């Protein structure tokens, strides 16, 4: 492997998807996967396919909903968008993430 790639920390894919949908509005699966790759500057090791199991789970939680739309290749595809519950969940997930990183950061500071 030429470039140093990081795996997505466990459980953060949900957060990345929610954040993406918040910024970009309704998108289909491919666009979500591409967007995550682009924002992470190709430094993320992500199989694009892995967004789909994550999407179905988030959808079952009621955080996103799907609408049928037409893709750039003229195919019927699902467009995902945030629900009200999803926006709330995003705030929770962001807060959790910040809490966790702050904790880890402080831990590292103290230990060094």
């Amino acid at each position, binding site marked *: 492997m030429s470039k140093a790639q990081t795996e997505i920390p466990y459980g953060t894919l949900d957060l990345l998807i929610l954040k993406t949908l918040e910024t970009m509005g309704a998108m289909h*699966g491919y666009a979500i996967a591409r967007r995550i790759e682009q924002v992470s500057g190709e430094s993320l090791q992500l*199989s*694009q396919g*892995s967004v*789909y*199991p994550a999407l179905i789970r988030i959808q*079952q939680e009621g955080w996103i909903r799907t609408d049928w739309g037409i893709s750039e*290749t003229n*195919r019927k*595809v699902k467009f995902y968008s945030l629900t009200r519950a999803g926006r709330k969940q995003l705030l929770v997930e962001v807060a959790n993430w910040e809490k966790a990183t702050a904790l880890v950061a402080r831990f590292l500071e103290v230990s060094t």
Partner: protein
Amino acid sequence: MNLRRLFASLLALMRKRRLDLELEDEIRAHLELAERDAVERGLSPEEAYRKARRGFGGIEQMKEEHRDRRSLRWIETLLRDFRYGLASLPRAPGFTAVVISILALGIGGTVAMFSVVDAVFVKPLPFPQPDRIVGVWEAPRPGAVNATTVPQFVAWNRLAKVFSALAAEQPILAALNDKSGPSRIAGKAVTAGYFKVFASGAKLGRTFTSEDDRPGAGPVVIISHAAWQSYFGGDPGILHRRLILDGEAYQVIGVLQRGPFDRDETQFWKPLIFTQDQLASDAHWLTVYGRLNASATLTNARERMRALYAALDETAPMKERGGTIVVEPLKQLLVGSNLHRSISVAFGAVLLVLLIACANIANLLFAQGATRRTELAVRSALGASRGRLVAQLLTEGFALCLLGGAAGIATAWLLIRVATPLLSQSLPFTADVSLNLHVLAFAAVVALGVAALAGVLPAVQASFGNLTDSLKQSARGSSVMHIRVRRSIVIGEVALSLVLVCGALLLARSLVKLQQLDTGIRVENVITMSADLPLGAYPTPQKAVLFYEAVARRLRSTPGVAKAGLSTYLPLEWISNGEAMQVAGAEKLVRVRFKRVDPGYFSTLDIPVLAGRGITNRDREGAPRVVVINQALAAGLRDIARMANPVGKMVRLSSTDYTEVQPLMSDVQIVGIIRSERTSSPGSPDPAVVYVPLAQAPNPHIKLLVRTHEGTASIMPSIRQAVREIDSNLPLGDVATMQQVRDRTLAGASRPAWLIGIFAFVAILLAAIGLYGVLAYSVTQQRRELGIRMALGARPGDVLSQVLRRALVMVSVGLIFGLIGVFALTRVIANLLFEVSPLDPLALATACISMMVIGLLAAFPPASRAARVDPIATLRDAG
């Protein structure tokens, strides 16, 4: 997992196919888009195709993950096995039919029996706040309860603060005249609080208020919903109609809601209005029920009532003192210990049948598992894990038991429909036997239990055997373990069946003993019926006496009638107590029971006069008062009053007069002694009975006894005609032959005999099927061995006896275990037996021998098949 996700998962489970298709579409669209982007960035179509797929990652893994994420994976597998199980059932229709019918029998019987248990013991009484309803009794001595006197009841009603309602009842019978002629209906005279105690409301009109049982209140009546339907066709204008009871018109003021009272024989309720005499009398005749008020508990109600009784005691007559009051929950009063025992034993028996059915199913699944070894071995070779195979077999067993359970519920429904009319006589009226949620839940538990019991062992066996061996054709050795397990199952079945057969035989022996029991009367060709003279038509004792004499004379001259007699109580039936005899010179009262009889009574029943004389036509009003006593009383007088020969002696008696109670009367002469007739079920000694001439102490409630020359089947029309000629408005009720009366009294304890008999029959049948199955299988397995032996010179007779011997060994081992079970259960059944030991050698021997015979019968077909094995064919076949 939260509820929302669970729901979504289940939804996804149901929409599996659509979701899979949608996912396919998404993947295709995704790849197309990725390819397009790659082409735009200048890659060749082939490179773009590869790049898109590389970027996407493993498609199949992703799909699996998608399925895992969105739904409950194990349920999906389970459903698939289940569907597979159901689909495989029709492939072996004979097997499936046998298993399902066995399950239908086992589960159906158990569930039907449980619905009785549920109705009698589990379900709360069908009244609001049922645990607050109590019966209140006087208890003159510890262990004995008695009906209550009117003064006591009135005092309780006024002073007791623990009840929100208290009411007394007295059962009554009345003649109802409608288009179809006179008929007798049962009712109750109750005080005003009665329906408040049971918290039962009226569907139409109202229930009683305190105005209704005041002296001088108008005649009113409340009828049950059932009576409204059957006598008035559900007439909505019923409240404007009158009910003619005993020739007197009663205004109908209410119709009860449909409910428990419709199962009772009581059809109407009228207010119980106490007369001045009753208010002063110390006769015990009221049954009292109360509803505890919100703040009272059973314990403090008991304490308060005891204190109240003690306070009242000081004013009570001398002989009444020293007792107490018993407050019992209604529920306990309704279920007697006899019924309790009968139901428990019957339920235990049906559980045994279920257990045998389980064993049989296990046996059949076992056999079927053996035939499927090849299929399982192939699956295992293709990579199915052992756990996966066990799960599959279990699920298939479960599918089978589910079908069996459904068939069982249908059977139970049928059984309940058929048996309820037969049972309702023996069950309290509050018991509503039905397939409710309790019962269905029980059925589900039973079906699951059966699935677990019958399914686990074969499943484990089928998958744990050396499966690769099964792929080879010559896997004969591996079935040794298998046949051993099946043999132990059959032994268990034989043991359990023996327990049931012994129980049935013991109960049957007990019934036979009861039939042989000397009742002191001649039962054959006697038909009995009852009549209640309405006070309106027979206001005086003289009128009643005229009627009695006329009816007896008319009956005796009826063709076909040999003898006729009248009495206030039937033989073999309970006689009310409370009277006493006092002998001159002796301090102590002798407790006696009164039976008023006419001159024909003793001869109609062939009761012999042992000393002195019987009752004659001359013992009428105006003549000296006389009585005849039974042997038991004569013996009692000898003990208490040292009276060696009571005939001719003068005694004092307390007596209930035509309508009310009178104190002791003197100058009664004992003129004869008769042999005791039985008045109750076995176990209790004959009570002391005084036979009073009906003409000297008439009573409006009488029984007619008629002995015919031959048979009682066709005599009733002439009897009715005879009575109609004397009084055309008087209905005859409770028509029963003396034999029926006898059975009713005596059969009580052994009532479950026929039920246990049916269970035992089913058990034997199941055990025989099991035995047959095992032997048939082992004969098939040993064809080769048998062939060799016969080729070496064994005769068919040797082979036959060898197989039969094997069956006998299995049955014998089963019998030994069964006998151990019988010994362990002696205490359970002893209570239900009459003069038969629970270890009665005759019953035990008969049971063992019949099990042996049935075992041989079941073994015979496989044995004769073994004897017909063609040695050459088998040897060639086996190669």
